[in-house]
């Protein structure tokens, strides 16, 4: 791990000012950041510990709920109101990582976790996300866990989280404090960015921005389902290949969001939809299938693994579809 200057922020303005400086990063749970610092993927000059900030409460916010940025994944999944009114969120959180990790990981930090692309985490490999301009090892390389939607010719990495998929389906928003003292709310659907020409920027956060909370609107009625498809089990210790959510009721139609198959951001903003006319969840449309096929043929010559939702016709050569398990 490279040396760094360690600071503790006692107030929000102190945190935004300290992280505004070049090379400074905020640390909360640290489960992803410390791992990447050990690998020298992240090399902050200054590490600003924000754990002392009063952002660790879950409180009623209008008709909905406000989850402080420092609320741990465990505390969010254990909260009675979330278990009762937003079971989709509790299920998505519990579907990820391990209890030890969820005990440290925070709501804000979880949104900021970085891709698990093995070219990104290996500093001997080229990676435009880690080192802009160095190239992408995954494109035309071994790419078993990479994006099939939302890629660019710079990056085909995915966003690894479970929680954000549920938050997107629930129309949650991220509340962000800026270094100039301002505050803004960004829908979770718009928080993560597509790689484009700047794959090094995972999300819309600017230097000095600190996430303070995630707000949930009023609960939706109906049954809520979180479905996660993984290449192997136990599924909780790895990230999803495909994760989709659907808080549903027949009268309101299906609301879905899908994550992770898409490059490094919200697959949900384009793929999510509300089908008031349908009593079945929207399935993979022909347009989506064509987009997947385009990505696979263009960037994934080594391993064109087809996702189960658009498996090739019987008789063609393709790998066995990954294990599918339905979350209760």
């Amino acid at each position, binding site marked *: 791990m490279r040396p*760094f200057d360690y600071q503790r922020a006692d107030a929000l303005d102190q945190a935004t000012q300290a992280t505004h400086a070049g090379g400074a990063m905020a640390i909360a749970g640290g489960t992803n950041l410390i791992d990447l610092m050990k690998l020298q993927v992240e090399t902050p000059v200054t590490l600003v510990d924000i754990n002392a900030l009063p952002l660790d409460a879950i409180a009623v916010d209008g008709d909905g709920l406000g989850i402080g940025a420092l609320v741990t994944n465990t505390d969010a999944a*254990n909260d009675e109101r979330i278990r009762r009114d937003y079971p989709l969120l509790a299920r998505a959180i519990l579907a990820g990582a391990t209890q*030890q*990790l969820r005990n440290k990981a925070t709501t804000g930090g979880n949104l900021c976790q970085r891709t698990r692309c093995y070219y990104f985490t290996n500093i001997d490999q080229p990676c435009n996300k880690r080192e802009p301009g160095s190239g992408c090892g995954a494109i035309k390389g071994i790419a078993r866990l990479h994006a099939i939607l939302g890629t660019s010719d710079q990056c085909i990495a995915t966003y690894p989280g479970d929680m954000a998929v549920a938050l997107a389906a629930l129309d949650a928003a991220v509340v962000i404090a800026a270094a100039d003292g301002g505050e803004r709310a960004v829908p979770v659907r718009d928080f993560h960015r597509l790689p484009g020409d700047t794959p090094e920027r995972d999300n819309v956060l600017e230097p000095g921005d600190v996430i303070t909370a995630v707000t949930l609107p009023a609960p939706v009625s109906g049954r809520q389902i979180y479905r996660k498809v993984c290449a192997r089990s136990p599924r909780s*210790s790895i990230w999803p290949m495909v994760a989709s959510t659907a808080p549903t009721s027949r009268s309101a139609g299906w609301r879905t969001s899908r994550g992770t198959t898409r490059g490094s951001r919200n697959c949900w903003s384009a793929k999510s939809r509300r089908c008031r006319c349908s009593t079945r969840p929207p399935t993979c449309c022909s347009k989506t299938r064509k987009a997947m096929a385009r990505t696979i043929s263009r960037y994934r010559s080594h391993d064109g693994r087809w996702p189960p939702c658009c498996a090739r016709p019987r008789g063609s050569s393709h790998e066995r579809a990954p294990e599918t398990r339905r979350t209760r």
Partner: protein
Amino acid sequence: MITVNGAEHALPDDPRTSLLDFLRRDVGLTGTKKGCDHGQCGACTVIVDGIRINSCLTLAVMHDGDEVTTIEGIGTPDAPSALQAAFVKHDGFQCGYCTPGQICSATAMLDEIAAGWPSDVTDDPAERPTLTDEEIRERMSGNLCRCGAYSNIVAAIREVAGARS
């Protein structure tokens, strides 16, 4: 200052020191093991303020004022905890490298069950979970055992959990 098994210690000067390295190197408590050092194997699991965490993925300087319990604080060879005794009885290990992490993890897990925390295999997250073997396996999935002593680990935990309820 940081309290480890009831004794106070000064925090390390180098902020890079992980809690795991601090416990093993600076405090001299080598019961906590370094396996992968990336939060995947669970061998470094310790209990901080009643919560189990991976000590490899946290910096010691971030634990000013915290109370840490390691395997040395859970029991001794002369006075083992109920889980330690059950692991011996049920042969819940072979090489033993993952065992301190398994026992720290299971110790906290039994409290989590008692507190009604849901898991990924809980049918309805709004309901209190019951401790089935499937629940034990899911909740212990953060602790890997390369010897494959899982079935005996589950048996040991089940016995202690059954005695408690």
